[in-house]
C-alpha cells in the first residue's frame, strides 16, 4: 500500500510551509531551543501521519510493533538538517519480517520529503543485549520516546528493560562512553580553543553536553535502579550548562539554516555572520567576530569543565592508567590540600584568603597533574574579587610562577587558572589574548591555547619515544634556566592582541611590562626579551640555505651564546608544534636540528672574535650609559676581550669585573663568589700568567668541588676574567658559612705561591675513591686550525671526573700553550672542553699540535 498522491503532495506542502515558517521564526527570534522543539514536533507529526497512512490507522496499532524516537530526536532536539534517529521496535523477528515492506515505503516517503532517516530495527530481546563495540546504540536508548504503534511494547522497553540493562551494564557502558569521549577529545587536541571549532564534536561542544547528561543519568540509574524523577545533573552544574546550551543550540540552528545541511563547523565566514546577527547573544551590544567567539569559548569551557568534572567523579569513567594513579594519589595530601579520587580539595574552606595558598594550589596541580574539585573551584571563584583588588606581584609571584612553569603538568595548571580567570588577574597582559582568534591558515588554536600547547609540548618531550623528540629532550635537560623559556613561550604572542603592526614588537613591549612587574632580574629579563624578540628568527633562517656557512654565521652571531641558542631552538620547536598537530614534521624537526648544530659549532669555533672598545655594540652602548664616567677605563678594559665575553655576561656583571680589575693594584687576586640556583659561581679577575687557569681549577678540585662549566677570557691588557661554575660535592660551603672566606683565601694563597697546591691535591686524592662511571666516554681530541686567524682551537671530549680540568689545563700549560679562551661544559658524565690556544702569541704549529695531543692522551688514559 503506498500513499495516495494527493496525500503525498499535501504532506510535502505542509512540510515545506512549516519548515519555512520555522526558519523565519528563528531568523526573527534567534531562539535555538524553540526552533529545535518546533522542528521535532513537525517531524513527529509527519511520522505519525505516515504511520497512520501506511502502517496502521489504529491509535496504538499495530500490536507488537512500535515507532520510537531515539538520540537527538528522542531528546526533542531535532536541528534543521540533523538525521532523524528512530528505532523500529518489534516484539519478535516475525514482526520484523512482516513489516519489512511497509518500513521501506515509509523510508521512501521520508526520502522524498528530503528527511534523512537514521533507523535501527531491533526486537525487544535484542535491545537488552549490550555490545561493547556499539555503545552508541545503548546510549541512544537513554533518550527514547514513544511516537506510534504498540505503547505497551514501548513501556516494556522504557520502564523495565532499560533500567535493568543500565543496572547490569553501567560499568562497561560508562567506560565505553568515557573512552569514546577521550578518543574524540584527543582527535581535537584535547582543547576547546580551536580557531574553527565544530559545534558538535569539538571539546566543549554539544556532544560533550550530551555526554555530561548521559554520565549523570547512567550513574543515577545505577543507584536508583530506575529512571530518576528529575534531571540527574546537579542544580548548579545544570544552571551553568543551560545557558551554554541556549547558545550552542542557537549557533547550530544558524549553521544548519545557513549551510542548508548538517554542517557544524564554525568557519571564519560563519563567525563573521554570527557576530553580525548576534546569534545566541541577542542582548549584547555590537559584536565583532572575535567578541562572538569569546562568548562561544566561555560557554564551551563551561561545558567541558562540567563534563570533565563528571568524568573525574565517576570512577568507572576513569581510564586504566588513571585508575593506577589513584591509589598513590591519595598519599599526595598535604596540610593545605587533600586529594580524594584524584580531585583536589582544600583542607580549610577559608584557606584561600591567603593568596599564597592559591599560588601553592596551582603549583600542586602542576606538579601532580590533578584536577580541582567543583567545591575548590567554587571557593576560588569566591576568593577572586579580593585577589583582584590586591593581586600578588613582584619577586614572590615570580618565584611561584617559575616553580609552577617548571612542573610536568604546568600547562594543565595554567589552563585551569585561565578558565577560572585567575591567570589574567596575576598576569593582566594575558587578557589581550584570552580566547583570541587570529585568522591564520596554519594555526589551529586560539592564541592563549597555542601558548599552553607550546609549553605542554616541551614538558612532553621527556616521555616521547620519537628519535627527534629525544634529541630535543636532551637539549631541554641542559638548560640552566628553563623557566625563562617557559615564560617566553607564555608571553611570546601577546602582541597578537594588539591590532595592527608587528606582533613581535608589541609582544616585547607587553612582556617588558610583565617582567618589570615580576621584578625579574636584569640578566633573566634580557634573556626572555631576547627569546620573544627573536622567536621567528630560526624559522626565517630555515627558509634560507642552512648548509651555507654564511647563513649559519649570520644566525649564530645574532643569537650570541650557546645557552640562548639552545633556548631559541627549543622555543622554535615548541612554537611550530603548537601551531597544529601536523605542523612539526620529522623533515622540519631535522632541519631545525641541522641549523642548531651548525650554529652551535660555529659559536664554539668563533669564540675568539675580539671586541674593540669603541665599537658600536649594543652591550657596549648599555655599559657606557650605565656608568658614563668610566669612559676610557671601560674602553681599555673591554678592548681585546672576545665577543663571547660580552655576550655571556650582563652589563652589570661586566661593570663589576671592571671594578675588580681596578682593585688589582691593591689585591692582585680578585675573587667574587656567589651561590646560583644550580651551582656556585666563582669569578677570578687577575693579571694573566702561566698556569693561572690550571691553578684555579686545581684549587677547586682540592676542595672537592666539581666544575661543571667555566669560561676564561682575557683582554688586550692581559687581564683575565675566569668564571667557574661548580657544585659543592661535600656541601662544605652550604653547611659552613665560615668556609666561604677560607675557601677564597685558599685560592688567593695558592695563586700568590703561599700555599702548596700539589700537596692539597695529593691530600684530596688520598681522601676517597672516585665513583665508577655509569657511562663510558671515549676520549677525543680535535684541533681546528682554520676557524680562527689568531689561535688554534682544541676540543677535548673526555670522561668527566674530579681534577679533570686541572689536569687538562696543566698539561696544556706544560706544553707551553697559552689558554686565550676556555669554554668548559659538562653533559652528564661527558666533559666537553674547548680551548683557544696560542704559543708565543701565534697559532700552534702542526708539530706542536701533535705533541699536545700525545701529552693529553697520556694524561687522560687510565685511572
Amino acid at each position, binding site marked *: 500500500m503506498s500513499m495516495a498522491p494527493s496525500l503525498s503532495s499535501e504532506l510535502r506542502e505542509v512540510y515545506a510551509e512549516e519548515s519555512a515558517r520555522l526558519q523565519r521564526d528563528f531568523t526573527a527570534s534567534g531562539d535555538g531551543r524553540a526552533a529545535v522543539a518546533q522542528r521535532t514536533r513537525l517531524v513527529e507529526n509527519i511520522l505519525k501521519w505516515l504511520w497512520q497512512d501506511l502502517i496502521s490507522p489504529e491509535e496504538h496499532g499495530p500490536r507488537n510493533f512500535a515507532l520510537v524516537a531515539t538520540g537527538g530526536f528522542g531528546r526533542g532536539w531535532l536541528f534543521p538538517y540533523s538525521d532523524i534517529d528512530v528505532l523500529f521496535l518489534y516484539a519478535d523477528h516475525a514482526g520484523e519480517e512482516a513489516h519489512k515492506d511497509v518500513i521501506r515505503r515509509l523510508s521512501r516517503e521520508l526520502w522524498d520529503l528530503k528527511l534523512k532517516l537514521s533507523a535501527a530495527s531491533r526486537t525487544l530481546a535484542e535491545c537488552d543485549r549490550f555490545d561493547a563495540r556499539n555503545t552508541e546504540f545503548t546510549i541512544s536508548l537513554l533518550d527514547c520516546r514513544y511516537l506510534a504503534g504498540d505503547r505497551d511494547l514501548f513501556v516494556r522497553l522504557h520502564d523495565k528493560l532499560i533500567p535493568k540493562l543500565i543496572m547490569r551494564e553501567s560499568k562497561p557502558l560508562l567506560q565505553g562512553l568515557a573512552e569514546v569521549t577521550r578518543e574524540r577529545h584527543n582527535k581535537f587536541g584535547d582543547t576547546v580553543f580551536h580557531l574553527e571549532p565544530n559545534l558538535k564534536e569539538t571539546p566543549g561542544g554539544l556532544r560533550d553536553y550530551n555526554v555530561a547528561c548521559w554520565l549523570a543519568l547512567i550513574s543515577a540509574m545505577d543507584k536508583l535502579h530506575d529512571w530518576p524523577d528529575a534531571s540527574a545533573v546537579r542544580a548548579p552544574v545544570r544552571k551553568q550548562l543551560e545557558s551554554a546550551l541556549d547558545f550552542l543550540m542557537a549557533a547550530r540552528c544558524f549553521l544548519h539554516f545557513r549551510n542548508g545541511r548538517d554542517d557544524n563547523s564554525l568557519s571564519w565566514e560563519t563567525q563573521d555572520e554570527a557576530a553580525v546577527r548576534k546569534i545566541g547573544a541577542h542582548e549584547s551590544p555590537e559584536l565583532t567576530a572575535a567578541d562572538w567567539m569569546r562568548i562561544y569559548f566561555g560557554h564551551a569551557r563551561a561545558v567541558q569543565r562540567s563534563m570533565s568534572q563528571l568524568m573525574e567523579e565517576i570512577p568507572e569513567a576513569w581510564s586504566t592508567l588513571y585508575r593506577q594513579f589513584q591509589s598513590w594519589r591519595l598519599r599526595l595530601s598535604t596540610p593545605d590540600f587533600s586529594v580524594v579520587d584524584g580531585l583536589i580539595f582544600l583542607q580549610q574552606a577559608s584557606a584561600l584568603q591567603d593568596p599564597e595558598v592559591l599560588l601553592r594550589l596551582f603549583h600542586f596541580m602542576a606538579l601532580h597533574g590533578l584536577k580541582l574539585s567543583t567545591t575548590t573551584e567554587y571557593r576560588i571563584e569566591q576568593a577572586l574579587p579580593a585577589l583582584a583588588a590586591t593581586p600578588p606581584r613582584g619577586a614572590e609571584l615570580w618565584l611561584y610562577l617559575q616553580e609552577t612553569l617548571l612542573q610536568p603538568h604546568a600547562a594543565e595548571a595554567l589552563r585551569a587558572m585561565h578558565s577560572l580567570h585567575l591567570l589574567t588577574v596575576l598576569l593582566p597582559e594575558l587578557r589581550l589574548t584570552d580566547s583570541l582568534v587570529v585568522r591564520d591558515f596554519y594555526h589551529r588554536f586560539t592564541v592563549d591555547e597555542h601558548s599552553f600547547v607550546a609549553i605542554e609540548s616541551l614538558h612532553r618531550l621527556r616521555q616521547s619515544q620519537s628519535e627527534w623528540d629525544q634529541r630535543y629532550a636532551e637539549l631541554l635537560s641542559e638548560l640552566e634556566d628553563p623557566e625563562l623559556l617557559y615564560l617566553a613561550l607564555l608571553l611570546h604572542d601577546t602582541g597578537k592582541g594588539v591590532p595592527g603592526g608587528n606582533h613581535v614588537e608589541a609582544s616585547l613591549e607587553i612582556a617588558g611590562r610583565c617582567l618589570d612587574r615580576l621584578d625579574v632580574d636584569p640578566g633573566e629579563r634580557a634573556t626572555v626579551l631576547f627569546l620573544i624578540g627573536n622567536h621567528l628568527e630560526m624559522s626565517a633562517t*630555515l*627558509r*634560507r*640555505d*642552512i*648548509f651555507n656557512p654564511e647563513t649559519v654565521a649570520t644566525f649564530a652571531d645574532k643569537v650570541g651564546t650557546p645557552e640562548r641558542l639552545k633556548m631559541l631552538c627549543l622555543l622554535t620547536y615548541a612554537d611550530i608544534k603548537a601551531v597544529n598537530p601536523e605542523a612539526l*614534521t620529522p*623533515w*622540519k624537526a*631535522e*632541519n631545525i*636540528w*641541522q641549523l642548531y*648544530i*651548525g650554529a*652551535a*659549532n660555529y659559536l664554539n669555533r668563533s669564540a675568539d672574535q675580539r671586541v674593540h672598545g669603541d665599537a658600536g655594540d649594543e652591550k657596549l652602548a648599555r655599559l657606557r650609559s650605565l656608568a658614563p664616567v668610566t669612559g676610557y677605563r671601560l674602553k681599555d678594559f673591554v678592548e681585546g676581550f672576545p665577543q663571547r665575553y660580552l655576550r655571556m655576561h650582563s652589563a652589570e656583571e661586566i661593570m663589576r669585573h671592571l671594578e675588580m680589575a681596578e682593585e688589582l693594584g691593591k689585591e692582585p687576586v680578585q675573587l667574587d663568589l656567589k651561590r646560583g640556583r644550580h651551582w656556585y659561581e666563582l669569578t677570578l679577575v687577575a693579571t694573566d700568567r702561566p698556569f693561572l687557569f690550571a691553578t684555579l681549577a686545581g684549587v677547586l678540585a682540592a676542595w672537592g668541588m666539581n666544575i661543571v662549566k667555566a669560561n676564561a677570557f682575557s683582554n688586550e691588557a692581559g687581564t683575565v676574567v675566569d668564571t667557574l661554575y661548580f657544585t659543592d660535592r661535600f656541601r662544605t660551603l652550604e653547611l659552613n658559612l665560615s668556609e666561604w672566606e677560607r675557601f677564597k683565601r685558599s685560592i688567593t694563597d695558592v695563586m700568590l705561591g703561599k700555599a702548596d697546591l700539589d700537596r692539597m691535591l695529593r691530600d684530596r686524592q688520598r681522601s676517597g675513591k672516585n665513583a665508577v662511571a655509569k657511562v663510558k*666516554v671515549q676520549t*677525543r681530541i*680535535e684541533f681546528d686550525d682554520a676557524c680562527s686567524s689568531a689561535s688554534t682551537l682544541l676540543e677535548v*671530549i673526555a670522561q668527566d671526573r674530579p681534577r679533570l680540568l686541572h689536569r687538562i689545563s696543566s698539561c696544556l700549560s706544560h706544553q707551553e700553550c697559552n689558554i686565550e679562551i676556555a669554554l668548559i*661544559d659538562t*653533559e652528564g658524565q*661527558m666533559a*666537553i672542553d674547548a680551548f683557544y690556544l696560542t704559543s708565543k702569541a701565534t697559532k700552534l704549529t702542526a708539530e706542536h699540535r701533535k705533541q699536545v695531543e700525545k701529552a693529553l692522551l697520556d694524561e687522560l688514559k687510565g685511572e
Partner: protein
Amino acid sequence: MTKVEAIIQNSKLEAVKSALQEAGVEGMTVIEVRGHGRQKGHTEFYRGREYSVDLIPKTKVEVVLPDSMVEKAVHAILNTARTGKIGDGKIFLSKVDDAIRIRNEDRGEGAL
C-alpha cells in the same frame, strides 16, 4: 600532458613558486623530501657525537602541464633554482596518460 618533478634546495622554493606562477602555471604540489645525489651528505660533529646527514632535506615541486607549457616551466625552474653548486637538484619529465578533475569529472588538459 607532462608531469614536471623538480627536486630543489629548500631555500629556493619561494623563488621557484613565483617563477612558475609568472610562467602561467596555476597549480602545483609541494612535498618535503629527503635524498641525495652526488651531494652525498656529510657528517656533523656535535659535542663528541657524530650525526650523519646522508639524506639531505630537499623540496619537491610537482606540476602537470599541457606539453606546450613544459619548456617555459622548466626554464622558470632552472633559472631560479640554480646556484651552480652540487646539490642544486634535478628536474624529471614524464608523460601523463590522463588527468581528471574530481569535482566534475573533466578530463584531459581541461582538467588541469
